[in-house]
């Protein structure tokens, strides 16, 4: 029904992090359990085939540009404020398993802050975007993150801190901002990236990394769930040898 996934959206190896000092993890490849699972039962990979990703950050830091550079391969020089939230769906294939990212691109304007929580719910990854040439936008990143986390379970959300407009910063300025950004990333346990939507530098690598890590996390969560189910099954089987075991009644439903 759907056309095949684009070549550059096929991920066979875990992409590298941007900076080992501020990465979610620095392992060279996918978790062995994840690899094994994908090899063993590709078709069964239904319940973890989608991840919700929200993109937050100050006004005009370039959230929409970042996404459209990746999803549409284009960069627009004219600025258009996002009303409410934009949405893009991007399809990948990770280790042979179809996987999609729902990208929710939220508005940075103050006026829409009150509705943001509605859109934040159930996110598996949060991308906090700041402008590498604006120190202010970096200092606000912490607040954006806190707001987004209110609606989500901190233990299951992956965080990314992304500096944009890399092409606009001088090397000195960049080095300084990056130092601060990495410090913040360590503190909030986020993975740091610096990209340019205008030149496209780092954009594809970054989203491949987001897709890979959310995929890995989804599979691991699924394994954990089914793992606990297995344990229950074992207990039940042991129970059945006891005399007090009553078989489950068959339902009368047609």
């Amino acid at each position, binding site marked *: *029904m759907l056309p095949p996934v684009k070549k550059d959206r096929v991920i066979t190896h875990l992409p590298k992090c941007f900076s080992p000092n501020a990465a979610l993890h620095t392992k060279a490849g996918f978790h062995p359990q994840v690899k094994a699972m994908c090899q063993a039962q590709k078709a069964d990979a*239904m*319940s973890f085939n*989608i*991840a*919700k990703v929200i993109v937050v950050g100050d006004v005009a830091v370039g959230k929409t540009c970042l996404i459209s550079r990746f999803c549409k391969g284009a960069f627009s020089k004219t600025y258009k404020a996002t*009303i*409410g*939230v*934009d*949405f893009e*769906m991007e399809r990948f294939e990770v280790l042979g398993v179809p996987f999609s990212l*729902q990208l*929710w691109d939220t*508005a940075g304007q103050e*006026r*829409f802050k*009150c*509705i943001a929580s*509605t*859109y*934040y*719910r*159930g996110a598996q990854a949060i991308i906090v975007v700041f402008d590498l040439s604006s120190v202010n936008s970096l200092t606000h990143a912490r607040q954006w993150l806190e707001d987004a986390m209110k609606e989500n379970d901190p233990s299951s959300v992956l965080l990314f801190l992304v500096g944009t407009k890399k092409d606009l910063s001088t090397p000195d300025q960049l080095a300084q901002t990056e130092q601060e950004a990495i410090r913040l990333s360590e503190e909030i346990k986020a993975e740091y990236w610096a990209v340019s939507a205008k030149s496209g530098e780092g954009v594809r690598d970054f989203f491949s990394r987001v897709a890979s890590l959310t995929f890995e996390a989804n599979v691991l969560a699924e394994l954990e769930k089914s793992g606990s189910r297995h344990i229950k099954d074992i207990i039940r089987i042991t129970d059945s040898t006891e005399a007090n075991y009553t078989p489950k009644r068959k339902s*009368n*439903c*047609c």
Partner: protein
Amino acid sequence: MALQGSEELGEQVEEPEDLDDQDASSISPAEEITLPPGPGGDEESEEALLLPWDRFSAWLHCICVVGFDLELGQAVEVIYPHHSKLSEKEKTSICYLSFPDSNSGCLGDTQFCFRFRQGSNRKSSLGCFLETADRDAPPCLKREQGHYYGYVYFRQVRDKSLKRGYFQKSLVLISKLPYVTFFHSLLKIMAPEYFEKQEPCLEAACNDIDRWPTPHPGRILTLPIMGVVLKIRIPTCYDKPGTSQLVHSAQSDSLVSIVLPTIHEVDLFRCFYPVFFHIQMLWELVLLGEALVVMAPSPAESSDTVLALVSCISPLRYGSDFRPYFTIHDSEFKEYTTRTQAPPSVILGVTNPFFAKTLQHWPHIIRIGDMKQAGEMAKQMKVKKLKNLKTLDSKPGVYTAYKPYLNKDEDIIKQLQKGVQQKRPSAAQNAILRRYFLELTQSFIIPLERYVASLMPLQKTISPWKSPPQLRPFIQQDFMRTLEKAGPQLTSRLKGDWIGLYRHFLKSPNFDGWFRNRRREMTQKLEALHLEALCEEDLQQRIQKHTEVEAVDLVLKLKDKLTQAEREQLPLRPGTITKLRSHIDAVILALPEDLQGILHKPPTP
């Protein structure tokens, strides 16, 4: 002769699927059929032409917020998007229809829907585009022509900070699309957020909707709204009735994406539960377009029941007006309740006790009690005499003097009763009932489809150089004669006065609507066949034998045909339009140069 014709051109009128062929494992036709592309070109480029708010308008006319003002009473507080047009009369209708009337104590959140007449004759610039999408929709899911639907989410909660002591507000979606289940699901997501977060929420939601793909039947549509993604599929007229193409895929995370198995089907069993002994009689009453009123305790129950009634004759489209929720303030109140004329062919759902008196003279009245009390089902229930309906607290039931044409099917009643005793899930009961209605309607309609297909002229009577042949007229006697051999007895074991039922039906608005639709489709098919035959001709050879004047005349006629084919979306074989265009160009090129210049000019709009 007629039979031969229907064989040759058998594919014009799609015969309903064989009822016996209900093998669940079979591939549904919708998966195999690729929709014929419209002559307008591919969809991608069409979607690219859409302007801001066009996508929104393809789904909704507007969103209204109706509140209660202590001095003004009910009032439309907000219309979004702000440029949407509603006449004063329409606004008044929306005001009254968005609140429960009289003393019904709907505390908490309530959802219901209403339908009202479109005021002025406003034209949508999207018209042609939407028609393409509408063509593939089944008859009962086509865009409304002269009416709007209002889908309401009403909240009434105690609030001491307000002067009135209560917070009362409705969020209302106004649309021409009859996707009741879909819009109610949408409101369930939007309305609670709106009541909390006010206008920015509406703005964002409308913006979400303005990025949706247009409502095109047959495609799986992914619709992001307020942080979740709704997945739906609008059925097509090519689907096998009674099947669903969108299956719940594994455990979908309700926080991230919601799959709606249906966009329009209501829970028939729940709606008919209070009167379920009479379902077959109700089916006849709806089929015949009889004046019917549903008196219910709340707008939710009245609108659910009216929608269930209207949909029980699906895939037939109910051809008369119906109002899931009707109030004494309605602009058609006088027209519909007058005693100087026979009651009109409409179905009304009402909650105001005043109607018990106003509509006392109506021939068929359904009274339902509170649906929430799922008590024991009565063992038997008699049809009640109309004269007994006088007081406000009359018992639930069907009040009518109507004698059904068909004998009662005891099996379905027993089957459903058994389900109630065994606590069969409501979804299963609903599926049984839906299937029962579908088989009944199909048994009834197949003989008509067959007869109408035989009205198609023979293929050989189509000549490219004459105008297309006419459809033969519908002659009631001829049709009745076909019933002897090929009547509903072939597919239904129900006995009774089928002939009487057909005779009555042929006079009803439902027949009129159905036949008009069939006739239009068949006429278009004839036009298409004619055009295809014309394209097969060697036109250049022909004009060589004719004068210049005749050649020019031919070009003009062909150009007319081309415009017609595009405007009416004629069901042509792929490539016909291109062929026709090259024919036109070839004929023009054979003419003297001065004439070529004139004829090549594109027609002025």
